[in-house]
């Protein structure tokens, strides 16, 4: 019962409370309380993630698996950042409460935590995503083949958007007067027509489909039909 019935009851009850909260002012406060608990659990999930990181990397170090030194670097940087943040090392004092150490701000640029964010975390994250530009170029060369009508449509649209988003679009078709009967051939107009009508229509249908899927899945979970989350125990 503890491993199946109670979790199913918790899931159903929390889901139902939040659904009811929409429909009655009297139940709105119940929903607000449940949401506040949810937000606290979301913060606890960060602690869980950090704990998991510790467990995995400590195991890697203790068993001397290949690459264990990198696990050591991960843990050193983790503990340094954690110490800077949790202990508010070098925090800028709060002007209204300068004597209270933990009332200070730990994330300004003047503190070690803020410095590490600005000059370590931020460039690393940004560069990881910047590399995607090269992967896009690689994919464009290797994978985009105009083999059939559908792929020709995809590539043609991509060309229109790629050109219209830059000065090339104005250079190639900007000379066509806006009030002429050939104005629809202007790349900027084609881009707006594609994004505002065709792309919107396609994405609208996808959004409707996703919404139906979300509704079905949520109902299955709340009604206790779908119990796949219990298989973790």
């Amino acid at each position, binding site marked *: 019962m503890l491993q199946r019935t109670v979790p199913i009851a918790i899931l159903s009850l929390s889901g139902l409370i939040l659904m009811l909260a929409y429909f009655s002012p009297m139940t709105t406060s119940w929903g607000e309380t449940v949401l506040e608990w949810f937000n606290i659990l979301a913060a606890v999930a960060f602690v869980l993630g950090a704990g998991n*990181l510790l467990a995995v990397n400590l195991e890697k170090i203790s068993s001397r698996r290949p690459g264990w030194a990198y696990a050591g670097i991960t843990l050193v940087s983790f503990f340094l950042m954690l110490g800077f943040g949790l202990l508010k090392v070098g925090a800028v004092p709060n002007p209204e409460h300068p004597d209270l150490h*933990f009332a200070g701000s730990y994330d300004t640029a003047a503190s070690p935590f803020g410095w590490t964010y600005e000059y370590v975390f931020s460039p690393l994250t940004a*560069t990881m995503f910047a590399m995607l*530009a090269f992967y896009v170029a690689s994919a464009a060369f290797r994978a985009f083949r105009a083999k059939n*009508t559908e792929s020709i449509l995809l590539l043609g649209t991509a060309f229109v958007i790629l050109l219209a988003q830059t000065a090339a679009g104005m250079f190639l078709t900007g000379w066509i007067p806006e009030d002429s009967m050939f104005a629809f051939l202007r790349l900027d107009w084609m881009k707006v027509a594609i994004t505002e009508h065709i792309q919107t229509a396609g994405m609208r249908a996808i959004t409707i489909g996703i919404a139906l899927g979300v509704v079905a899945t949520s109902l299955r*979970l709340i009604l206790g039909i779908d119990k796949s989350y219990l298989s973790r*125990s």
Partner: protein
Amino acid sequence: MNGTGNGTGNGTGNGARTNHRFLWISLAVLGASLSVFGTAMAAQASGGDAAQETVALSKSIGVWCAALLTIGILTFLYKDNPFYKVCESILIGVSAAYWMVNGFWTTLVPNLFGKLAPGLVREVAIPSLPVSETPGLDMALAFVPLLLGLMLLWRLAPKGGWISVWPLAFIIGTTAGIRLVASIEADLLAQASATIRPLVVMKPATPAGADGAAAVGAAAVAATVGALDFWGTVGAITGVVGVLSVLTYFFFSLEHKGAVGKSARLGVWFLMITFGSAFGLTVMGRITLLAQRLEFLFKDWLGLG
């Protein structure tokens, strides 16, 4: 001759020694940067002009640190290598700690501990924490997320993993509850409403003739509802046809033959145009991110341009 495996770090031969050398060089550079920075931060306490100098020094060190880490990540484009692995390991450690610290100070302290022990939180961290009108009730209710949170952390324990299913069920139930209604409202009903629009679009009304005389016939119609907007009408019809045909494509309970099949095929064409457009916009986004990093390297680090 060991011509392979220089970058794999598999613990054998020349490759492994090269990897460890890279690793120790990287750690030495990082350690040197941090110790210089630590000295700079300590010297900052002395105040005055020395403080300004140390701030400039810490910024200079920071820019160098950021540049080296940026280049370290970019080396992956050639191939996987220890320098990249060091940078990746630092990123993983720092980001996990960052998220945990943020979650702790922004949510756990004010919203959980602030209700369980408001006096202590006011004394130590948040003196301005509002005083609750119902502290007893708040404290009692706060035991629920505290208990669920501890049960969630039990997931790390070697035994009793089922205990963490209770808070997981709570999280899933809450998410399902809010998403169900929000999806119906914003993604189903509102989208259907946005699709069902007049197929014939008219231009805004035009004013009366130049001589002020009342308009007649077609001009009278134009004076109230305007002339037919051809491209607007085409756009409206395209939108409705597009949504219906794409929905037909995703409807698998009917075999895609005959009229249904043709409609589904039209839906596929709409989807191909959609994805082509999405690709074009994605390229712009990715290039911008790369441009920003190169801006940093050339302008902020090397001082060129």
